[in-house]
């Protein structure tokens, strides 16, 4: 199967890797266009799927997470290492992509990591944390808006 990212980069993926993608693994189409996912994010999502190529049953993360637990206590080491190496902004975009592809374990992992990061912090601290380091210009904003409208159509 081929994935095409927002910036028109094509990724070829084995069907075995696709097993985690519950929404598209049983479809007949050979090309999936992810108009709202950048290649950098898509690459990370594919990396996660490849990481779990041989994992048939990934254990569910317990809800809610106990206060004394960190991410290394609740998920496997490779998952914890994968998620902790990502920027907050990337994680949020990964969630959107994982939602589209139906990778529920990746959504859970990302949400659990965000929950661990924001727990015990007041609203101001959380807002600060969610501020992107990446600047946004008017042109960029307009571009994103145009893209969203295009996707909705």
């Amino acid at each position, binding site marked *: 199967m081929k994935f095409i990212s927002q910036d028109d980069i094509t990724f070829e993926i084995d069907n075995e890797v696709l097993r985690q993608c519950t929404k598209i693994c049983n479809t007949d189409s050979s090309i999936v266009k992810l108009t709202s996912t950048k290649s950098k994010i898509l690459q990370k999502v594919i990396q996660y799927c490849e990481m779990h190529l041989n994992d048939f049953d990934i254990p569910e*993360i317990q*809800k*809610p*997470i*106990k*206060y004394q637990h960190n991410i290394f206590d609740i998920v496997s080491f490779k998952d914890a290492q994968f998620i902790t190496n990502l920027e*907050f*902004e990337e994680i*949020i*975009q990964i*969630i*959107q992509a994982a*939602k589209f592809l139906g990778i529920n374990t990746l*959504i*859970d992992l990302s*949400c*659990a990591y*965000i*929950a*661990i990061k*924001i*727990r*015990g*912090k*007041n*609203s101001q601290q*959380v*807002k600060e944390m*969610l*501020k*992107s*380091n*990446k*600047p*946004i*210009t*008017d042109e960029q904003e307009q571009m994103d808006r145009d893209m969203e409208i295009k996707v909705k159509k």
Partner: protein
Amino acid sequence: MLITLQQELNNLQQSGKEKEQRIESLYINLQEIYNLQSNLDKPAQTKNNMLHQVRPEVFHQIIQFLDLKSFFQFRLLSRRANDVIKLMIPQKISCIQKQMSEHQDELQLKIQLSQEEAKDENSQNMLQAAFDGLNQLQKAHINELKALARPTELIERIINLICLILDSKFKIQKDNWRECQKILSRQDFLQQIISLDINSINDKQLKQIEQVESISPEQAGAQSIVARSLLIFLKGVVNIRQTKLYIYQNQIKELKLKIKKEEQVIERLGKIMNK
């Protein structure tokens, strides 16, 4: 002539003022343009807030991993976060209600078990016997003990443990007989022991008091009658704390506290929902 000159001067002053105002407004406009330009040149000053990118369903998923305290805190993050929390409240309430009913079932079971255990009067009798032994003690006995300049190691150990249950901050260590003497000199020393609330002894104290299990009353009695009575009392306290009845009663207390907290949380959630 003078009048015309005066008028001309006035006109010039007027036009000068107008020009000054125009220059000032031009300067302000220029400043604004400069600011806009600098924003475009240095976009780092205008940061992108990821909060607006997060969709409600993602918020919902994140919140599921949060404990109650963070759940309430999350509400204050943004209007969207608050809306999501409000939508999630009924689900959260039903979850807590389920937990609460489980706790109530457990509570009923523990009450039943403790009632059955209470019928067995052995444990109560054991402590009563210990208190009876203490009642026979008199101040003179304590004074005699206090007057010892160098007590034997065993007596010192027993008195140290007695001091520990009266004062959780008391530190058991060698050669602190003087500290023990201070406590023994208390006017109401005996009364304090008799009226001791066994529940107030914390686990750390209890662990240290458990040392008495290795000492027999005969050993203590051979050295001092008072030490023997105090040892029997300590043994009684340890026995009571280890009885099933006591354990059940403690569990019942904890469960009642949990249920109360859950009720309070449900009430709080209800208030937020109805706002």
